[in-house]
């Protein structure tokens, strides 16, 4: 077992981030699913030793992560938000972090990690100039460079375009074959579903369910989804989407198309094909929390 938590609690003043969470996670890829503010990041930060729990116990790779540098170097963490030494080049960033993690040959380790995430060609550019997708890949590169046993990835696919998303999914799915385990969070079921069937559901700091994604999926599909699609030709894409089965509402906001669909599977399958046919560049696809919120309400109230 790579992670075991017993009655884990975390409070920020009067706000409860984690409420009596007990769980066990086996080696391999495990998805942590929950809407924003559910407590996913808190759980991850406690698991990597960045944050201390208010009460309860947690063990990662058999050790308490709090103030445990020997364990910290066995973990790789990709934070949700961007935090970089913006003045550095990508290569410099990964090399410097590999060095402070005690890697014998940080340059070689950084090169291998950058190659792995396909960033070598732009590695000499300053991080300041990187696109959203490049930044996500750079965060994963720094998490990989020191050869960790467990990767903790907090919303690694957020804001990525479909191509980068597909690349990152392929990359993450390859880790277990190398003996690495992955803990990956998301608020989008379809993202997690592409990575692993094993999920942990968290809502308002509580563990709602854990197990196979397919059972949750059936519940999700009963509820309409709202998806935001950022594209260079929103009107053309909207016209094409309007002809699709299952699309119940389309609206425009801040240059993006907001689509409400009661057939999300079909929607996600058809969207790239429609974009190709209409010659639209898809810049970003993001799903609102409402989809999951409805399911979580159902799960917590039943």
């Amino acid at each position, binding site marked *: 077992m790579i992670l075991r938590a017993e009655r884990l609690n975390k409070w*920020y003043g009067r706000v409860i981030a984690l409420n009596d969470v007990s769980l066990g996670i086996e080696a391999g890829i495990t998805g942590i699913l929950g809407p924003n503010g559910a407590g996913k990041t*808190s759980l991850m930060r406690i698991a990597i030793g*960045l*944050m201390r729990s208010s009460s309860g116990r947690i063990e990662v790779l058999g050790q308490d992560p709090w103030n445990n*540098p020997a364990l910290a170097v066995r973990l790789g963490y990709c*934070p949700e*938000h961007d*935090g970089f030494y913006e003045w550095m080049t990508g290569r410099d960033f990964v090399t410097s*972090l590999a060095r402070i993690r*005690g890697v014998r040959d940080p340059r070689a380790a950084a090169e291998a990690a950058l190659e792995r995430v396909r960033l070598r060609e732009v590695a000499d550019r300053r991080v300041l100039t990187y696109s959203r997708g490049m930044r996500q890949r750079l965060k994963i590169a720094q998490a990989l460079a020191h050869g960790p046993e467990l990767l903790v990835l907090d919303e690694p696919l957020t804001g990525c375009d479909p191509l980068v998303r597909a690349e990152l999914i392929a990359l993450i799915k390859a880790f277990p074959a190398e003996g690495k385990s992955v803990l990956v969070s998301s608020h989008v079921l379809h993202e997690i579903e592409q990575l692993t069937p094993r999920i942990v559901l968290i809502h308002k700091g509580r563990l709602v369910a854990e197990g196979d994604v397919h059972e949750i999926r059936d519940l999700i599909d009963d509820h309409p989804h709202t998806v935001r699609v950022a594209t260079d030709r929103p009107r053309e894409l909207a016209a094409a989407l309007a002809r699709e089965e299952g699309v119940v509402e389309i609206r425009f906001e801040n240059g993006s198309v907001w689509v409400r669909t009661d057939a999300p599977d079909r929607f996600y399958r058809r969207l790239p094909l429609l974009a190709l046919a209409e010659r639209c560049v898809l810049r970003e696809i993001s799903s609102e929390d409402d989809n999951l919120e409805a399911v979580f309400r159902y799960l917590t109230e039943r």
Partner: protein
Amino acid sequence: MRAATGFAVLTARNLFSGKRAWAALLLAALPPVVAATVAGLGGEKADGTLLFQGIAFFYSLRIMLYLMALIFGIALTSGEIEDGTVGYIYLGSLPKWAIALIQSLVAAAALTALAGLSLLLTAAAAGMAALHPLEAAGATAAKATLVAGVGILVSLTFYTACGLAFKRPLIVGIVATFFWEIVLTALPIRMAAYTVTNNLRALMLPLLFDGDRGRWYRYVRNYDFPAYGEAALFLSVLTGLFLVAAMVAAMNRSVEGKEAN
């Protein structure tokens, strides 16, 4: 050791990137510019020795070092949370106490070097004055740098400890400095002997003023002034206390910044 060296290099590079570097450079550039202007425009009345001592006494060894230490001490700690880089640092092979120690020592060394350069250029400018041009500018600047280094180390460790222990370190640091250093230093009471400023002045007296309470010391009001040895001991103990406080605070630091949930 490899990780410690790597972290020291990263800290030094991070210190001198962005706005903080410009602020430090501006603070350091002011004394030589003022000294050169006064020496150049003062004509026959420009007194080099008095000029250097005045600038060192009132600006470099008081205002400059506190501001530098405040900017960098807070930036080293809460700045990492603002930048979102603290997670990368704490997930290294170094314990948190070592991170706090390395950050404090590297920053103190870097700022002392900058202060030293500033004082050397100020001394060189004062050496060009017509009246009593400053002699042995290099040696005088080195002595002043020694005092500056002590001041920076004690102030920086204090602000670093504040940054690690409090949620609003800037306010705590500024309030403490104001009441302890600015108000208390100016009062003619026994407690004034326990301020950093007066202990730095006690170091300055034999090093920069040849033990003579000259013209610039007439502004120092408190009657109870520590001896050189007492000042050295007091500042060493204070640095040690602040450093230990910073290391303990670092070990208890749970990163619950804006990304926490």
